[in-house]
């Protein structure tokens, strides 16, 4: 409250649809003039949390303001999202997200809808990797297709909902029938695959690299080919479904702000985060975590977000 009163004296950009009374106005010129709250709508310690903390660590140096990470998990990450919407649309509260919050808001009637966010940018977009035990009858793409065609529905594939969605999407396009089993976390799915209880697992690149030669990468179900560096770490060229004519599912890590935030402020924020991402120290930290920076600016990020939403609407019913 106090914060907004102080701001109101400065500038002219009027945010509409504000929860606070009166025509509070926010300055784009001197943005950012105070610390930025960075909401992580997941439990502390997860992938998004680590990304948020890495980005936050570069705040003072590259954005000119410190970034404070605020962990607000709950209700399929919509508690954090609802909190974002309850804050003023001044660009001083942002949130990191992925497919999971999109899945939540698209699968249930909630106080938050899919459009209640303005995407600032995408900081990464990982490709999910379909893996199997080495030496199995489905250890490469062609033999897997042959096996799945000969035994429709016999192939059991495990992964989290967001990752299983990629399997559902690609298999649907390829006319294959698989038995997709959802897990609460990648680790549980991988353990079941290593133990031979399920046939395949769909995992993040970091998990795939961690598995080493205990498992083989069958296909990249993401929206773009793997980088050479990633393929090298995975032990060879992993075939990309895009090359076979199918649409892979992107897994963007996006940063969003209140939908009523002025575009000038979003652009400044985008620029600042980009500077953080381009810093060598950030790059090396991210690489150490087994991930890579794949940046998309505001316009293309918003489009990618909307596309991901459409894909979810199409394929989620297959998993319910």
């Amino acid at each position: 409250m106090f914060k907004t009163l102080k701001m109101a004296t400065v500038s002219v950009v009027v945010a509409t649809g504000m929860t606070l009374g009166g025509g509070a106005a926010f300055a784009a010129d001197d943005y950012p003039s105070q610390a930025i709250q960075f909401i992580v709508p997941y439990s502390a310690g997860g992938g998004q949390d680590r990304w948020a903390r890495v980005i936050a660590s570069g705040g003072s140096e590259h954005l000119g303001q410190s970034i404070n990470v605020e962990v607000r998990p709950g209700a399929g990450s919509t508690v954090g999202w609802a909190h974002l919407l309850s804050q003023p649309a001044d660009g001083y509260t942002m949130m990191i997200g992925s497919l999971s919050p999109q899945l939540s808001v698209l699968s249930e009637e909630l106080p938050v809808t899919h459009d209640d966010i303005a995407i600032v940018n995408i900081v990464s977009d990982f490709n999910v990797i379909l893996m199997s035990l080495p030496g199995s009858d489905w250890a490469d793409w062609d033999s897997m297709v042959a096996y799945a065609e000969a035994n429709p529905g016999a192939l059991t594939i495990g992964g989290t909902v967001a990752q299983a969605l990629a399997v559902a999407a690609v298999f649907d396009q390829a006319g294959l029938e698989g038995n997709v089993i959802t897990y609460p976390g990648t680790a549980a799915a991988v353990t079941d695959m290593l133990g031979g209880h399920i046939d395949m697992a769909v995992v993040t690149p970091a998990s795939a690299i961690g598995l080493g030669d205990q498992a083989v990468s069958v296909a990249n179900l993401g929206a773009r080919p793997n980088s050479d560096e990633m393929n090298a770490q995975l032990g060879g060229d992993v075939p990309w479904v895009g090359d076979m004519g199918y649409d892979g599912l992107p897994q963007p890590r996006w940063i969003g702000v209140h939908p009523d935030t002025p575009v000038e402020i979003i652009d400044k924020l985008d620029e600042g985060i980009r500077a953080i991402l381009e810093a060598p120290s950030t790059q090396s930290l991210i690489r150490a975590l087994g991930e890579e920076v794949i940046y998309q600016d505001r316009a293309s990020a918003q489009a990618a977000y909307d596309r991901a939403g459409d894909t979810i609407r199409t394929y989620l019913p297959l998993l319910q």
Partner: protein
Amino acid sequence: MSASRKGGAMSRRRGMSSVWRSNRGIAMMLLVLVLAIGLSIWQSDWAHRVLRDGFRLGGFPMIGVGLMVLCIGVLMFDRRARLIEPEVASVTLLSVVVVLGGLVLLLVIFQLYWLLGFAPSVTLFVAGMALALGFRPVWIALATGAGTALALSLIAYLLGVPLPHGPLLALVNG
């Protein structure tokens, strides 16, 4: 709790409203509550939605309701159905008021965080309740309140828990 006190509490209360204080009486009240929950689940649309593995969305919640009903049924007719637990026998209007009042008070204090700020609300609550419960001297109560508030604020700060500072701190900061 000693056996003699148990017996005493029981005999003292034996006359009044004993039916509702017996295991059976309480089980009956629970039954009404659980059946109401079960009915509301049964009548909702989501409960009958069939999932892709063939289970109904309401299946496992209804198993829970079913088991509760079963246990309540046993409770109403087993050997101890007519027994009055000594703790139940000793429940008075005062204790109900104290429990509900205590919970409401906590809720109010939690809302006060956003009005007065975290530290003042905590100090107020701790010192106020200690004094109301008859703790003396006053200064120790106040110091404990302030100390608790300070310690919790420090932990919150270190752990990145966003707590409202309230108007007092804002005034100090200008």
